[in-house]
């Protein structure tokens, strides 16, 4: 049948179109496909990000989508988060949710009841396996033991605490509401309730911060922390109070070399304390080695764990499952004002992965959710090349890099070797990258300068993709009577929703 033949050809020609969202195994189609043409299998899994946009006070460095309002109509916000989660899960036809992350803003300001409601909505629309990671971002100023216990009862099983610094002067510079002592108490309380599942965030590269001050702070944090630490180099963002002070000359900008020293020193200290540096800014311990075959002797974890087990068979340990799903270019659904998502909207006939952003402003977002079930403000269909570009830019941030298997899911016809064979070798000779049986990844040196490597890698990908990539699928003959192609509407990029 002509129509069928064309669709199959199209599916093969645009591997990235529906492939990445697909489950490793054949997932059961949720509904009978319209028309005679069988639909591609509905994607089975996604993670869910839920954005709580409110804070008590804006921090001096923060340019996130947050709002300080006198009173939050929590019941209304809760109803909208619930409704949007239901709508988007239905749109995505996701069967299983791998993790849920409550970020913000300050989601620990929400009541545990709101967390319960959203999680129930997720469980109502898809399967949330017992033990699936449910993380809540918490500020030390809103984390009494009682509140934390409430969150735990609501279903939260992992806490990410925004400690940022253990120095009161630094905390004031950052505009944080808490003191070092309060942060310490919060982490201790959290560890009681979430043993092995408490993460802390620290910032370095603050204006005027010395290497000594940073290592002192990190040492104190190591004495306090659980098995996961995120170390973020402070980024001066346009429009923030801190950036204005630095660019205006009121505060010194940290020198490049000092930032590099801070990063290297921190890395060394954390490796010595048994942590695995599994992403640019993230460290975890009591986890396995990422390399399935054979373990690299040079890798730090080979010294830590005598029994290196293939990565895929290990539990995630203290790694953040949720964040890994971004870096591995899995599907994720963003719920709440300004939340971002990447998924295939099978439920409305889409068959390509889309970049979606929910409306930024909470009131406008709520109105949209109330009237049409979700507040998506922008959706852009990602071309197979764009998807691969994201795979590259995100995957290389991790120590596991991009495995051949994952690359193959997005690019079945053009292997990692075919794309990065030549300059990859050059970069490999210079010691920035490794391309081997495990896949493509950065060396320790390469990871620190990834943003200088990526433009070249993207150029290389675009060059190879151009001539080698299969051309656009042959269009249906005019009046040929093929079933409408699901993606054609979405392919226009922006569409009134």
């Amino acid at each position, binding site marked *: 049948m002509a129509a069928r033949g064309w669709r199959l050809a199209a599916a093969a020609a645009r591997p990235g179109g529906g492939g990445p969202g697909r489950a490793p195994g054949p997932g059961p189609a949720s509904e009978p496909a319209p028309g005679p043409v069988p639909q591609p299998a509905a994607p089975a899994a996604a993670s869910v*990000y839920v954005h709580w946009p409110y804070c008590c006070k804006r921090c001096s460095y923060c340019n996130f989508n947050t709002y300080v309002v006198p009173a939050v109509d929590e019941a209304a916000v809760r109803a909208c988060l619930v409704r949007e989660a239901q709508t988007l899960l239905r749109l995505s036809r996701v069967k299983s949710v791998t993790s849920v992350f409550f970020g913000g803003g300050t989601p620990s300001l929400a009541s545990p009841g709101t967390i319960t409601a959203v999680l129930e909505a997720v469980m109502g629309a898809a399967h949330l396996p017992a033990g699936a990671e449910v993380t809540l971002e918490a500020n030390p100023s809103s984390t009494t033991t009682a509140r934390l216990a409430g969150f735990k009862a609501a279903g939260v099983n992992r806490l990410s605490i925004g400690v940022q610094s253990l120095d009161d002067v630094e905390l004031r510079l950052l505009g944080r509401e808490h003191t070092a002592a309060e942060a310490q108490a919060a982490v201790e309380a959290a560890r009681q309730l979430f043993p092995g599942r408490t993460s802390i965030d620290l910032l370095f590269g603050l204006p005027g911060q010395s290497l000594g001050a940073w290592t002192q702070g990190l040492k104190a944090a190591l004495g306090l922390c659980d098995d996961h630490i995120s170390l*973020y180099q402070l980024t001066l963002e346009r429009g923030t109070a801190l950036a204005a002070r630095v660019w205006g000359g009121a505060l010194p900008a940290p020198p490049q070399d000092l930032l590099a020293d801070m990063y290297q020193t921190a890395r060394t200290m954390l490796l010595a304390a048994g942590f695995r540096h599994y992403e640019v800014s993230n460290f975890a311990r009591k986890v396995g080695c990422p390399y399935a075959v054979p373990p690299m002797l040079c890798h730090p974890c080979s010294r830590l764990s005598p029994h290196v087990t293939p990565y895929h068979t290990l539990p995630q340990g203290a790694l953040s499952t949720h964040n890994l799903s971004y870096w591995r270019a899995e599907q994720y659904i963003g719920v709440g004002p300004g939340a971002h998502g990447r998924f295939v909207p099978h439920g409305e006939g889409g068959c390509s992965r889309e970049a979606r952003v929910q409306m930024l402003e909470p009131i406008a977002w709520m109105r949209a959710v109330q009237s049409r079930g979700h507040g998506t403000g922008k959706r852009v269909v990602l071309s197979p090349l764009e998807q691969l570009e994201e795979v590259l*830019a995100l995957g290389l941030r991790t120590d596991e890099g991009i495995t051949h298997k994952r690359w193959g899911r997005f690019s079945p016809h053009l292997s990692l070797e075919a794309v990065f064979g030549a300059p990859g070798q050059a970069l490999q000779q*210079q010691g920035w990258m490794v391309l081997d049986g495990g896949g493509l990844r950065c060396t320790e040196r390469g*990871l620190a*300068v990834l943003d200088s490597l*990526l433009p070249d890698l993207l150029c290389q990908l675009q060059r190879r993709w151009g001539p080698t990539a299969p051309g656009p699928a042959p269009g249906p003959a005019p009046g040929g009577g093929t079933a409408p192609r699901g993606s054609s509407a979405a392919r226009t990029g922006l569409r009134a929703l």
Partner: protein
Amino acid sequence: MALAGRTAMWWARLRSPCPSAAPLCLPPWLLAWPAACERLYSSRGKEKLDMSTYPVENIRNFSIIAHVDHGKSTLADRLLEITGTIAKTAHNKQVLDKLQVERERGITVKAQSASLFYNHKGVNYLLNLIDTPGHVDFSYEVSRSLSACQGVILVVDANEIDLKHADPERVEKQIEKLFDIPIDECVRISAKQGTNVEKVLKKIIEKIPPPQCNTSDPLKALVFDSTFDHYRGVIANIALFGGEIQKGHKIVSAHTKKRYEVNEVGILTPYEHPTHKLYAGQVGYVIAGMKEVTEAQIGDTLFLYKQPVEPLPGFKSAKPMVFAGMYPVDQTEYNNLKSALERLTLNDSSVTIHRDSSLALGAGWRLGFLGLLHMEVFNQRLEQEYNMSVILTAPTVPYKAILSSAKLIKEYGKAEITIINPAQFPDKISVSQYLEPTVLGTIVTPQEYIGKIIVLCQDRRAVQKDMLYIDEHRVMLKYLFPLNEIVLDFYDALKSLSSGYASFDYEDAGYQAADLIKMDILLNGNPVEELATVVHNDKAYATGKLLCERLKDAIPRQLFEIAIQAAIGKKIIARETLKAYRKNVVAKCYGGDITRRMKLLKRQAEGKKLMRKIGNVEVPRDAFIRVLKREPEK
């Protein structure tokens, strides 16, 4: 002569390529203002004008002369408005400056003509205005325009007569002293506000003589400018010194002896408007099937077939002061660039062009320009009008060497050679003397800046020749400059240390002996051909150090350390080190928001494709020209 007030100098960036026409009592053919994009067809479908109603005695051909930024183009705008040539709207700014580069920079580069119709005391006059550039680089254009005129309006900035710190009395006295123009000949105007602009028109009619020529004589037309139209070929701007010309006439070029048949004649309003004929004394354009870029030689005389005339004296050809290599970014673009250069040089015949090639940059050209601004404008026009991106090497002046080596003399066929490419700079061993070009520079400045200006001139190896108080406030200084000391940034430096008040002009002053050496700039040991330069021995160290320092700021940090060195022969005289990136990775991709991040990365990836690679070092293409030109203080 007119004295113009300083006029609208806040050159509004071009709002629209053409002002919208407002209904006015105008001849119908002027109401529809052709949009720039329609220009190609602008002369079609219009009623042809009968120019016979303007006998020679009712014609005035004039130019407006002024320093750059004194308001010449604004005065031209007002004259066009008053005579109804263009509709009076708020958008008329630099109407005659048709090039994008002119509007962006607020300067006139290319002389333009416009025919104005004006009734004075019941007589209809045809006034042909030829707008001219003000910058010293373009004085060649000015001299060309003048040959078609019988008089000029001199515009002198008296600092805005409509503002309270204007000082027209003083400026009138200066003009009298400098040019012997009586004070009562001056007209005080504000072109910005239109004050007294009518008076200028009356003065033009009263003071400028009509052209001395006769329609009954045989055709004698001076080609004073030309433009190239992709569809119609060469459009030659002509001034008729005798006879008449119309469609179907067979004409001959005195220079090439080639024969053409006239397809179209017309006047410029300022866009082409066809007429039945052009008559002696009139200024307009002719299209006669000239296809080759070399056919419309500026200064050429056109006459009727079988009716030869004594050719008019041609122009002294423009003398290039600055040379630079130009290469396609990608050698596959060579032919496209070649054709763009040919077409652009037809519109700007002051550029000289020689084929050149380099090991590092491939096949290209060595171009001669009138000055650095001219070079920048030419480059910008290549980009804007022909969409070409090029590699430009460091500008150099034409040095000379007197050879002592018999072998080299034999090779060149002469003992004195001119060097327009530093790569061909002969070694000291085979040279008895190097010579550098000099110019006599004239600076007019308010006296309070004299001290700083003298220091600047001394720093540029200049020798003072004269110093004259024009009045109690203004001083005129004359210096003999080595040309290479002023081509790059002297004018900018002078303007900035005198808050824009000092003016500068120069003329050729021959060659002088000089202790010259060639200096190379190396990146990780690889020479940067764009930056190879000939310098005076006394300045080598300072120049080398400065170039290295500026390069350090202009080259982005890379994954490895970069040694930036200045070398004379094998001797390193300056070094800067650009350290490698040790850390360059964004800390966080917040909440899955990677769209912005991907955009930035892709922009960087695009940028990579345009980088010039020297060894393994990637350099943004504009880095070298930024290095050579002092950036304005930030």
